[in-house]
């Protein structure tokens, strides 16, 4: 079983305590989606993953990590 982890919460705080709402606006999604991502309940599409990475100005791998259990 594979799992995709993310560093969204940490990156938000590293970027001047960016709010979920602000990140959602930058990535073009809803705040509920950011909440679901941070809680690991939802895996985004490649497009949204890239948008989130761009919102932080980092590479995709810095935000999302693919881990095989």
């Amino acid at each position, binding site marked *: 079983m594979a799992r995709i982890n993310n560093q969204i919460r940490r990156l938000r705080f590293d970027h001047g305590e960016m709010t979920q709402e602000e990140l*959602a*606006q930058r990535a*073009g*999604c*809803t705040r*509920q*989606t950011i909440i*679901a991502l941070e809680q690991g309940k*939802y895996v*985004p*599409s490649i*497009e*949204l993953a890239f948008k989130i990475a761009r919102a932080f100005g980092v590479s995709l791998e810095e935000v999302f990590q693919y881990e095989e259990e």
Partner: protein
Amino acid sequence: MSFKQFTIIRISVVFIMAALIGWAVNSGNYLIPIPVAIAALVILLLFRRGVKEVVVDERIFSIAEKASLITFRIFGIAAAVIGATLVALSRESMPALEPVGFTLSYSVCGLMLIYYIAHIYYNKKYSGKK
């Protein structure tokens, strides 16, 4: 306009529309519900344009896809079983149930037909074949 404000407006419009349609049907004005429904739709579309937040995103579509699939399966199986049971019962003792049974059975056929047409369309669209 925030999404919360839009939600309040949406609920209000739906309530007003339901009240107007209910009143129109009760008073025998069967033509009123059509313009009322169209007006409500237009009002909601206009207000939705004013919402600056993202209202619908891929997660909401993903939820809708899963909900649609499970609804299709549950309704398909339930309506087919109930429809067949009603048709069988109508042959035995209750002929009044026959139209209900056939309506349910044909609605399942119609639903499956729409599903397979949509399936063929999207399968072609995302297959990569030319």
